[in-house]
């Protein structure tokens, strides 16, 4: 049985969030324009997009780990753990006690580069113990017992001895496992994984994806999984949200979105990856024309206008509405709301 009761009630809802980066000598950049996402216990939401689309910024905003020059200008991040009152994380003061009680404890994060996000001068055991000592007030001895059990659970062989190892003594795969153990130390209700397998080899990646799936079944946490790899999305996600230049352009169940992508950007992404097919069935890739514009050159309306093969009159100037296509499947595209008369014209 999962430790956290499953339900359909969202545990974390991000609505209408916008994040602006300011710089002393340039105009402000709105890295995230409008993001709406909900996480449900026991489910994985994959946030996918190319570099610079704002997926990592969105994830860091949930833990308020943004740099000083970034500001959440609008929107809310409601954390509703069920057993306690809901909190709007955006309203909490940076480094205030309530925020620190959530961060690392109720919501925790796995980073891409385990080598640069683990402390090089502490053993992994000490780093994991610390979490439990701080958040749960355990005695160091008790904490170590739990750490060893955790390391064992994430598949580190010889857990008791390895707890005394420094990160540099472990391989990339083991380091990522240690990182996952640390994120799970306080049995979080929400786990944010920012490209956790990107730096790993395929065989190690497959092991880590298996592990995350297994742990989710055991712990029942909600997972926000950030990646740029559609193959990984197809492997791990229940739901997927596609981001482009600060907007979530399409969102829905992984089966719906892969079977029938509705936004031209999602469609283009899908046809950019080589299919695993025999030579006879091989089709030439149809890449998206051009490159992602810089945020300051982003069109007023739909961000994808400049590269979209179907762009028509309102796209450049009017932001498309979030349109429901099916059961929990949404996209922001004018094509979906175009009147039949217009289409014929």
């Amino acid at each position, binding site marked *: 049985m999962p430790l956290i009761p499953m339900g359909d009630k969202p545990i974390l809802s991000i609505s209408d969030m916008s994040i602006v980066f300011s710089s002393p000598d340039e105009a402000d950049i709105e890295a995230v324009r409008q993001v709406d996402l909900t996480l449900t216990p026991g489910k994985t939401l994959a946030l996918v997009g190319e570099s610079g689309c704002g997926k990592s910024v969105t994830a860091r905003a949930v833990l308020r780990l943004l740099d000083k020059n970034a500001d959440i200008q609008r929107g809310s991040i409601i954390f509703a753990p069920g057993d306690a009152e809901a909190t709007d994380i955006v309203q909490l003061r940076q480094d205030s006690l309530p925020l620190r009680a959530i961060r690392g404890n109720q919501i925790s994060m796995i980073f891409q580069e385990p080598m640069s996000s683990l402390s090089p001068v502490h053993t992994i055991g000490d780093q994991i113990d610390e979490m439990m000592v701080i958040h749960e007030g355990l005695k160091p001895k008790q904490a170590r017992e739990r750490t060893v059990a955790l390391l064992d659970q994430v598949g580190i062989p010889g857990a008791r001895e390895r707890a005394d190892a420094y990160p540099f003594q472990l391989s990339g795969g083991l380091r990522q496992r240690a990182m996952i153990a640390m994120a799970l130390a306080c049995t979080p209700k929400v786990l944010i994984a920012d490209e956790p397998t990107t730096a790993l080899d395929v065989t190690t990646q497959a092991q880590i994806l298996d592990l995350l799936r*297994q742990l989710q079944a055991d712990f029942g946490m909600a997972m926000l999984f950030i990646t740029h790899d559609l193959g990984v999305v197809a492997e791990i996600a229940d739901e997927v949200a596609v981001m482009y230049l600060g907007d979530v352009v399409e969102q829905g169940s992984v*089966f719906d979105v892969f079977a029938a992508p509705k936004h031209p950007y999602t469609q283009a*992404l899908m046809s*950019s990856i080589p299919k*695993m097919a025999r030579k006879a069935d091989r089709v030439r890739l149809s*890449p998206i024309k051009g490159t992602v514009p810089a945020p300051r050159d982003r069109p007023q309306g739909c961000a994808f206008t400049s590269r979209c093969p179907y762009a028509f009159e309102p796209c450049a100037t009017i932001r498309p509405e979030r349109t429901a296509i099916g059961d929990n499947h949404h996209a922001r595209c004018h094509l979906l709301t175009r009147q039949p008369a217009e289409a014929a014209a």
Partner: protein
Amino acid sequence: MSTLLSVEHLSKHYTLSGGLFGKERRLDALTDINLTVEAGETLAIVGESGCGKTTLGRCIIAAQSSSEGRVVYHPKSGGDVELTALSKREIKPWRKDIRMIFQDPMSSLNPNMRVFDIVAEPLRIHKICKGRELEERVISTLEKVGIPAEAVGRYPHAFSGGQRQRIGIARALVLDPKLVIADEAVSALDVSIQAQVLNLLEDLKAEFGLTYIFISHDLGVVNYIADRVVVMYLGHVVENAPTELLFERPRHPYTELLLEALPIADPLRRKGRKTEARGEIPYLGNRPVGCPFNTRCKYAEDRCRTEKPALRSIHGSAQEAACHFAEQLSLKGAYDDAPTKEFA
């Protein structure tokens, strides 16, 4: 088809100092590599980090010296050139024929040089042309890869990752090479840009009659672009086969493991595999006795732990594998059309 390049019994080892009192140790990065590259084909070299695929590429163009064995280039003009036996000066003319594209377009272009000079440099070094002719050749090459003529005066930082990779490709192509070694040339790019560069590489190959050695860890891309695939593990070639045969029915358990681990962008084909603790790549300096893969192989038997299998043709076909049981094992390929798991 004629053979353009052959690699014969190539080995590369490094000597590690054992510290003040320790013994020196030998680390074998490449062990007895044999392969040929046919003119006009795209040969992919795949494997995980540390398997020696980059070292092999660098040994072929003699950017790195090899310890044993030979790399022989067979130019169209006839005659065999043993690249590994040439001095730095003697090899220079052949560097025109064999060019390299690097992985990271951020660090492989000199940030202090204009794009024009980056692409012109090889022409100047090899004293091929100058003045008007040089200018025309540089600009036409850049246009072929999709960099507009008005951008040639800019510095690399003004370009995006995909454009920088195009500049790297132009630099390789400007000398009219025969063989291009692309070392993870699309790995650092976003998918939409990666597709553009893959298409570009294909078009250029057709236009200039190029031969590629495509070093990559991404089997999806390899299946798309390669005619033949060489799979490496711990400095050994464990399988060498035409792409379709290899993906249809691999003959080496390591190839099967790689294909099984490959995430497929289709949730209906989600693998739903069980976590099978299959371990990690051993440290190169601590290579197992016998078959290098025996510590992770689920089919390993006693023989694998004592006797090293040689690379050999399977049933006399074009598919070669280094496994004692290559004929007996029925390994799973990647072209699985039926969904393997129904979704709830």
